[in-house]
């Protein structure tokens, strides 16, 4: 067992004293560990954890890792059709979560570990190494793809973040972002294990007043939010209790928004971060509270130990950001991965267009065309198109951003049929997560479409 895995596993007893949520259950880690041992899966078998933010989720995640399995967290709202597809494409050996219905997954073996149900797929060969971790990239790379990280790379990234944001055992961190995404899982939860800080786990629905109350009652010193939540707080004029630091990541933050946030007396330190799952995830940070005003529209400079390069910059200096980081993933997996995003000299291709100024500040310019951010969530338009195209009447689909932060899907019918757009929307809704469901579906004439 490597040092990072040993550190995570050995921290559980201490973590149990430092982490809490708002549920009535108090999971017993030892029972979870033994429950996974009884499953007797082969080392390197992937376990899909299908659960909302909670201490129980975190302990299940660690217990799978400690047994030499490969944890893979997924949004609990994910539809069973996608879960079944992932089970096959990523060679998932077991699915774990509350209230699982084994009939939906056509599995014969059904167990119970702690408060969660477990569906086991016998004869699924292990595709990974013990102490690997799968992080899904449903938003950016398509619905059935994941990064294969090692626990060392995640601990490394969490440590870099802690060091850069000065997070220590004296802090108390509030988790409001989903723990099945990088930020909540790696930056905050694994970060708390590494730093020794306290961790308070909350979950949806998000409510600014409750957020303020929680910070006050729980004596929270640090929290991480998305730009969508930050805009909501600014729009409502929410007054928070004093925070030592607030970090924002996951989408672009404007110069005006950074200025507005810095004007709030309750934010002492404001960090704007950039990252991507493949990088483990954090790459760069702007400590806005000490940065020059002209850098407010940037994502700062790379973490110490991270190298970057702008690939083939155009006349305006715009090119793809390449990153070399000790926390990079080992590889990407999934049925539509035809290219590993690495250069011959070991840089990660981010797929994001950036500039870098003379002072070293990185500025985001654009994302690859098939990725949208809608209602604060990333979505991959190609994944939406594939779901639409699985409808028997649809020949082809193209999804794009519409007006007012909306998603619009244009459809071309088979055999010039008149499409029942409401029925197709219901069909798509049964497979997609809510933020992926198009706000508007339009039928186009065949003559307009060129493959």
């Amino acid at each position, binding site marked *: 067992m490597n040092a990072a895995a040993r550190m995570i596993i050995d921290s559980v007893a201490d973590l149990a004293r430092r982490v809490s949520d708002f549920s009535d259950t108090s999971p017993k880690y030892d029972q979870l560990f033994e429950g996974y041992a009884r499953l007797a899966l082969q080392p390197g078998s992937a376990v899909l954890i*299908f659960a909302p933010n909670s201490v129980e989720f975190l302990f299940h995640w660690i217990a799978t890792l400690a047994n030499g399995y490969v944890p893979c967290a997924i949004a609990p*709202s994910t539809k069973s059709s996608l879960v079944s597809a992932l089970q096959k494409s990523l060679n998932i050996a077991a699915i774990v979560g509350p*209230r699982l219905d084994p009939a939906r997954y056509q599995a014969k073996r059904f167990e119970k570990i702690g408060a969660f149900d477990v569906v086991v797929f016998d004869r699924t060969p292990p595709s990974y190494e013990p102490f690997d971790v799968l992080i899904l990239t449903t938003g950016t790379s398509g619905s059935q793809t994941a990064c294969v990280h090692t626990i060392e790379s995640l601990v490394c990234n969490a440590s870099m973040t802690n060091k850069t944001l000065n997070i220590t055992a004296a802090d108390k961190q509030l988790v409001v972002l989903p723990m099945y995404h990088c930020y909540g899982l790696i930056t905050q939860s694994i970060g708390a294990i590494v730093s020794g800080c306290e961790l308070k786990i909350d979950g*949806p*629905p998000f409510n600014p007043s409750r957020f303020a109350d929680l910070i006050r009652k729980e004596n929270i010193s640090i929290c991480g939010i998305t730009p969508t939540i930050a805009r909501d707080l600014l729009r409502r004029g929410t007054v928070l209790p004093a925070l030592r630091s607030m970090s924002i990541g996951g989408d672009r933050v404007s110069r005006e928004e950074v200025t507005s946030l810095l004007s709030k007396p309750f934010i002492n330190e404001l960090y704007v971060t950039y990252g991507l799952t493949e990088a483990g995830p954090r790459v760069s940070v702007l400590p806005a509270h000490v940065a020059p005003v002209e850098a407010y529209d940037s994502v700062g400079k790379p973490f110490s130990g991270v190298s970057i390069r702008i690939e083939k910059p155009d006349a305006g200096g715009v090119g793809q950001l390449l990153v070399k980081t000790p926390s990079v993933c080992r590889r990407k997996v999934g049925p539509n991965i035809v290219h590993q995003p690495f250069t011959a000299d070991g840089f990660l291709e981010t797929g994001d267009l950036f500039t870098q100024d003379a002072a070293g500040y990185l500025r985001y310019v654009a994302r690859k065309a098939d990725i949208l951010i809608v209602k604060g969530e990333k979505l991959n338009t190609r994944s939406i198109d594939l779901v639409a195209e699985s409808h028997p009447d649809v020949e082809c689909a193209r999804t794009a951003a519409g007006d007012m932060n909306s998603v619009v899907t244009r459809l071309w019918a088979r055999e010039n049929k008149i499409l029942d757009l409401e029925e197709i929307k219901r069909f798509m809704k049964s497979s997609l997560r809510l933020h992926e469901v198009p706000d508007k579906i339009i039928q186009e004439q065949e003559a307009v479409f060129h493959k």
Partner: protein
Amino acid sequence: MSNIEACLRDILIEDLFVEFDRDRILPTYSLRQDLGIDSLGFVELREQVEKRFSIVISDDDFTPENFATLSSLTSLINRH
């Protein structure tokens, strides 16, 4: 089962596509933990409840406590 609870089950299944048989959704099930509703799901649930029951749920009432279970949500609707 109250009419309100029945209507809430309809919303969960028809609008949020919660993958449960109607009869398996117990009033005490956690919407988040047991039914897997996420942040955008709660936003949709709030909108559908407002539409179907012709009420307005204030931001102060849009809390994990009020949206914990069918029972707590029924109580919130009854208070309007």
